[in-house]
Every structure is written in structure tokens, then in C-alpha cells.
């Protein structure tokens, strides 16, 4: 059997000094294989960062076993870990004058000698890493002049330059805008698929994780960690259970999350299609659920998609008004019936 890059079994993680230890989670087991992109999900305080710091060897664990490439984690020193595993952290780095190239080049430190002198081969690897992250045009820019997304990519390039089989990232998409998040995750997805590195990242971006990750690790407060492919987890209703009490509904068919609004009133509607979907969303925010029924007496909505003003509001078959704008229509209707 092939040895997983990273593996842990019945792990208990926590932090604290000798006298006071705070256990954050226990009974964690999972493995990370070549070419896999794994997203670690969980609410705040469930121990995502602690697990990541533990796997990086930054802090000790209290029970169980952890292995990197079959070697016991607690027996590896900094030097050996630096060849096996590279990290991208949330730590804010401020180095005066540091350029993109300089920072990525620090990724080569495990391979350089006493004075940290880079060889031609080292420089080639550094440039390749920068190119892979699409930053070659910013090569000589100083770090402080970059956007948050670019800066995150610089650190990913640093991890690539370190040339380790495993890359671990702690919330690489936090503080980024939507397009940078997608870009960063796409970059990681590509690296995992192309280079065969195993990538583990923690994130709060559930829908992106569901689309990009090969497997998910779900950390629940107190409970054991649930692992599996996004599709299997959806199939087993894991997400629905997880978010049951939070006003969020996980739609199994779309694999997306939906915010659940309290419904105070129902309103019959005639017609369907895209206009219906839009109306349903708009009315949901007002606490009105629009429903398909057989009988239409009292107030009801009729959608005539072919007409210029598709949204019609009826009272006992009498047309009260028709509108083109969903917003105006929703406001008018809700002022009448609420």
C-alpha cells in the first residue's frame, strides 16, 4: 500500500502550558495523499488553526499518532520538516524593503548553506514558482505595494519554492475579495492536480470548497472530524445536520447554502419559470412565501412572461396592477397584504 503523505489517528489537539492545558478537539483521524486538495472546514473555535499548527509541528499534540511520509511527527526536527512540508500562514509579515523575489527566495533556505547564498538552480526554481503564481511581472516590486490577493500568492510561491510534497495553508482566502478567493483556490487546485503535491487548507468558503476540494475535513465542536468527498458528504446529509440550527438551509440539489427566512404569510402564484424564481427570492425577504396552488381566490399573483409587464397582481380575478420591476411589485404587494 502507498504511504499517505500525511496521516493522523485518534489525535487530541489543544494548547496551553504545563499546568493548564486546553483540549480543543480529540479523536481526529484523517490522511492526505499525493495530488489531493483538501479543505478543512468548521466554525470558529472548532480548532482548525490548532489542527494546522499541530500538523506543521509548531505545537505538540496530547494523544494519538501523526505521521509525515510514514515518519513520526514528534520525532522530526525543524530541518527535516522543512523538506517535507511548507506553510502559508495568517501571520502578518512586514519586512521593510522585501521584494517579491527576495521573499520567494527565502523559501529556498532549507537548501542553501551557511550564508544563504542561492545557486543558479535555486534561482530557476524561485522564478518558476513566481511564474506559476502569475507574478513574474511583479517580480521586483516591494511586498508592501501589493494587493492582499497578490501578497497571498507571493507566500504560495514561497511555499512552492520550498519544493515540499505537502503544502499547508491556514485560511489563505480570508481577507480577500471574491475574485481573488476564486483565483487563489484555482491556483491551488492546479498545483495539486499538476504537480502531485498534497494541499491542505482551512477556509470558511463552503461553496468554493465544495466545488474545488477532492475531500473535505469537517471539524465539529467537540465531536470527531468527518471526512469524505464533497459529493459523499452531501449525499449523506452531513451539511444539513451541521447547519440545522443556524437559519441556513443546505440545498442538496444545488450543493449551495440558502438563508432561511421566517415565513409569516403565503401567497398563491400562477405561472413559473425564471420570473417565478426571482419573485420567490424577493418575497422571501419580506417574509412572504409564494406557493403554487390549484384554486385562486382572494389575492394572487399571475406571471405573464410574454407581456412587457409580466408581474400581475389579482384580487378575485380582478387585475389590481402590473409591474415590470420585481422590486416595485414586491413592495406594492407586500404593503397591501401584510
Amino acid at each position, binding site marked *: 500500500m502507498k504511504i499517505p503523505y500525511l496521516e493522523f489517528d485518534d489525535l487530541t489537539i489543544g494548547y496551553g502550558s504545563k499546568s493548564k492545558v486546553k483540549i480543543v478537539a480529540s479523536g481526529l483521524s484523517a490522511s492526505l495523499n499525493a495530488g489531493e486538495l483538501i479543505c478543512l472546514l468548521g466554525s470558529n473555535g472548532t480548532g482548525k488553526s490548532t489542527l494546522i499548527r499541530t500538523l506543521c509541528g509548531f505545537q505538540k499534540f496530547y494523544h494519538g499518532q501523526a505521521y509525515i511520509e510514514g515518519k513520526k511527527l514528534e520525532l522530526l526536527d525543524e*530541518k527535516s520538516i522543512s523538506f517535507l512540508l511548507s506553510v502559508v500562514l495568517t501571520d502578518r*509579515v512586514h519586512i521593510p524593503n522585501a521584494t517579491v523575489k527576495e521573499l520567494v527566495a527565502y523559501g529556498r533556505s532549507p537548501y542553501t548553506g551557511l*550564508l544563504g547564498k542561492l545557486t543558479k538552480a535555486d534561482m530557476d526554481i524561485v522564478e518558476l514558482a513566481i511564474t506559476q503564481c502569475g507574478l513574474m511581472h511583479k517580480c521586483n516590486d516591494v511586498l508592501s505595494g501589493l494587493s492582499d490577493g497578490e501578497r497571498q500568492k507571493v507566500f504560495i510561491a514561497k511555499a512552492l519554492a520550498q519544493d515540499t510534497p505537502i503544502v499547508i495553508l491556514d485560511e489563505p482566502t480570508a481577507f480577500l475579495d471574491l475574485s481573488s478567493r476564486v483565483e487563489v483556490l484555482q491556483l491551488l487546485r492546479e498545483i495539486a492536480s499538476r504537480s502531485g503535491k498534497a494541499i491542505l487548507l482551512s477556509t470558511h468558503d463552503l461553496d468554493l470548497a465544495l466545488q474545488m476540494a477532492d475531500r473535505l475535513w469537517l471539524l465539529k465542536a467537540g465531536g470527531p472530524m468527518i471526512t469524505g468527498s464533497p459529493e459523499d458528504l452531501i449525499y449523506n446529509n452531513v451539511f444539513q445536520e451541521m447547519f440545522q440550527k443556524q437559519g441556513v438551509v443546505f440545498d442538496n440539489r444545488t450543493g449551495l447554502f440558502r438563508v432561511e427566512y421566517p415565513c409569516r404569510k403565503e401567497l398563491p402564484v400562477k405561472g413559473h419559470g425564471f420570473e417565478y424564481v426571482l419573485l420567490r427570492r424577493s418575497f422571501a425577504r419580506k417574509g412572504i412565501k409564494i406557493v403554487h396552488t390549484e384554486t385562486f381566490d382572494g389575492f394572487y399573483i399571475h406571471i405573464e412572461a410574454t407581456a412587457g409587464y409580466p408581474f400581475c397582481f389579482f384580487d378575485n380575478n380582478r387585475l389590481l396592477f402590473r409591474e415590470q420591476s420585481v422590486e416595485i411589485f414586491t413592495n406594492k404587494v407586500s404593503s397591501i397584504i401584510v
Partner: protein
Amino acid sequence: MNTNFKFLNTFIIQGIIAFLFLIFLLNLILGSVSIPFPEVLKILAGKGTNVIWTNIVLRTRLPQTIVATGAGMALGVAGLMMQTLFRNSLAGPSTLGISSGSSLGVALVVLIARKAWLTTIYRMGFWGDTLVVVASFTGALFVLGLILYFSRKIGGSLSVLIMGVMIGYLSNSLVGILKYYSFEKDVHNYVLWGLGSFGRLPLERALPFGFITISVSFLCLFLSKPLDLIALGENYARNLGLNIQRSRNAIILVAGLLTAFVTAFCGPVVFIGMAIPHLAKLVSGTSNHFRLILNTCFIGGATALLCNLAARLPGIEGELPINSITAFVGAPVVISVIWKRRKENLMDR
């Protein structure tokens, strides 16, 4: 970056080295007694004819020049290492109270010596010197350890700086208490020492001082890789294979040693240890510590020599205390750093 030495060809560093030599010579030539340049060269070559001039150059100016060069390099490199270690651009031997710790150590031996050994420390020759250095080193290390402990618990560069100032006050008042119980002669000696001067060592002691400070400053090049990594933060450094504890200890020891050595013989020289690394960073435009340390050495030597020259400008009888000059170099740098940080904070938000 391909080759660490490539930059030596660059214009700026050549300029700085040239300036260092120029200012070194100027320190030998300029002074209250004007000695022509060819004569100075002759004296240096051992062929001086005018006895008074020879005495002035060899007994006063040359040792002072050597001490200033060494002290500037040592303080600058110590300051650079502290700035990286504490990740605080305002760190330095004097701003963090390290010099104060050294002073306290020195005060202890200088002011207590007469009670313990019935003589002044300055009459004890080599052993007296050694004792002063050891006391100064112990004081510096103690404060460095204390500051490091607090900075890791508290964080925030300004609060650590305030802590350094407080430690300075504390050690000053301890020294005040010591003075109260000491002999007037010793107190006088100590006060003179505390004003700071590069001109207190005779040539036969200035040479080893210069040799040790300059060589240790350049030996710090071997710490450039750990410094590069520590600048990234503890976790990144560890992930890149650095043994944090060992590197940190080495850096503290060397920075403490450099500060202590200078403080023991020149008194607490304020500000330039913090200001010089900023000039080096400004000039070199790199985060690479190999280059930063080299630049700091050259700029440090040049800055201290410039201050030394300014302290005994022609027209001034005798010389000004060196600290009143270095403050003019250092204080503007502190202000500009805080000003720059304000802008960066605004940009971050």
C-alpha cells in the same frame, strides 16, 4: 542576489566605502590644531618630525578615530539585529534600554570597586577593563532578556519601546542610589563616562578595541541567514528549518556583546545604534541581511566618525560630549519612522 558580492560593484556601496575612508582621514587631519595632510601621512608612516604633532595624531586623534569607527559599526550592527529580532523598527541599543543595563553594570563595579578592593577600577589595568566589560555585558544581557520576554508577551513596538525607556529610568535611579553611597572621585569618573566619548582610550587599548568591534561586526554576516528567516516571523522561520531558540540566543548574545563592549569603553552612546540600520535600509533597498549588515558596518563607521568630527569642529575648545551630537542624527530618524508608520497604518485601513 545571484552572488552576494555582486553588489560590491554597485555605485552606492563604493561611494559609502570611499566616504568612510575620507571621513577617517578627515578625523586625523581636522581638529583644534591644524596639521597639514602630508605631515599626517608621514606621522602615520612613522616618519613624523614634529613631536607635538606626532603626539596629537598618535595619542589623541588616531585612537579616537579607531574607537569611533569600531563603535559605530558595532552599535549599528547590534541595532540592526535587535530591530530584526524584535520586529520593531525603533529598536536599538539605547532605545530599548540595553545601554542603560550596561551602564548599571558598569556603575556597580566602578562605584563599588573602592569599597571592595580599596582602589578605583581604572587603576586595575587589564583586569579592571575585563571586569567593566563583564559587568556591562551582564547588564546588557539582563535587559535584553527582559525586553525579549516582555515583547513576546505584550507585542506592539511602541509599548516595548516605552518599556525600554522605563528600564532606562529604573537603572538610572539605581545608579543614583549607588552614587549616594560612593566617593566623590568615583562619581566624577562615572559621570564623565556617562557623557559618552570615543576619546578615552589610549592607542594601545584603542587598537584591540577596534579589532574586536570591527571583526565581530563583520562576523555577524554569519548570522545573516537566521536574521533573514526571523524577519519572516517565528512560524515561517521554523517551517524553513531554523532552530528558533538557538538562533535567537546567538543573536541576543552577539548583539548584547557588541553593545556592552562599546558601552564599557565609550559610555552609553545614544541613538546611532537605532538610526544607522535605517540609513542602511534606505540606501540598500533590500531585505537581505547579508547586504544590510555590510552596509550597516560601513555606514555605521562613517556616521560615528562624522559625529566625532562634529564634536570637535574647529573653533570649539576641547570637544562636545558625543551624545549631544548623536541625538541630532538619531532623533530625526525616530520621528521619521513614526511618521512613516502613521502613513502605513492609514493605508492598511
